[in-house]
């Protein structure tokens, strides 16, 4: 068993365990913390997969920004015991949902393990036209990523900025107390 496999297995176990933690904890704070662990473990996956920049971005954006926001809201709404106070009106869905999820995972795993060997297409791999190539395997490849982002995908990248601006405006509008209400 190589080191690679060992590392993968450890990170995979961590990711799955923390993922289960997200949905299993009754307290929303614990769920949020589990999600942070899960996101960090994914960042580790990205490191293993040579994606240094993405790993860093994952840590910065998700762990640093998004999860902080989550924790703020969780604490602000003090909803940690919300589900304990009310009864589940569609409790049958608890069982059905779990079974459906397990079947989904099992079926996908079955396909991936037994039948569908998804191998990189040799022709596609050799083609320079179709993909932006990783320049030097093993290194960070951040330069290649930058080239891809600011050349081939410049327009989608710019559109993303517009989406973020729209989201900020939306959040401001939603978060603001309505004037009529404040005048009451």
């Amino acid at each position, binding site marked *: 068993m190589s080191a690679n496999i060992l590392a993968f297995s450890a990170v995979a176990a961590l990711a799955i365990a923390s993922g289960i933690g997200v949905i299993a904890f009754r307290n929303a704070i614990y769920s949020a913390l589990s999600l942070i662990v*899960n996101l960090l473990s994914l960042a580790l996956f990205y490191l293993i997969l040579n994606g240094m920049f993405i790993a860093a971005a994952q840590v910065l954006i998700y762990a640093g920004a998004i999860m902080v926001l989550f924790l703020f809201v969780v604490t602000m709404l003090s909803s940690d015991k919300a589900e304990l106070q009310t009864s589940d009106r569609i409790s049958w869905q608890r069982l059905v949902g779990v079974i459906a999820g397990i079947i989904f995972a099992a079926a996908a795993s079955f396909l991936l393990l037994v039948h569908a060997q998804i191998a990189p297409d040799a022709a596609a791999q050799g083609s320079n036209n179709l993909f932006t190539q990783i320049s030097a395997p093993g290194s960070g490849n951040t330069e290649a990523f930058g080239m891809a982002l600011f050349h081939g995908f410049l327009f989608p990248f710019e559109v993303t900025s517009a989406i973020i601006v729209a989201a900020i405006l939306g959040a401001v509008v939603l978060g603001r107390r309505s004037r009529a209400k404040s005048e009451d």
Partner: protein
Amino acid sequence: MAVSLNSYLIVSAILFSIGVIGVLVRRNPLVIFMSIELMLNAVNLTFMAFANALGSVDGWVFVFISLTVAAAEVVVGLAIIVAIFRTRKEIDIDEMNTLKG
């Protein structure tokens, strides 16, 4: 030897299914939201795995963009949850059931 592509995909599938179960089972909208993040990240993992297997950085670009979109989505989604909480003083998603036949 390197870890096969399929291993990553299996992990991704498992994480995605966990996210699905979370959405179906939990009633706290915040936790449901977290489950959705979980599903998003599971998909990101497949992108990264494929990018590595194909030797291309294009998958990274997708992941990067989905990261930013996820950030935007979280901002708006949380703002909505806060707004709902402010008007209804409760945080059970099953209370929001006026859209029924």
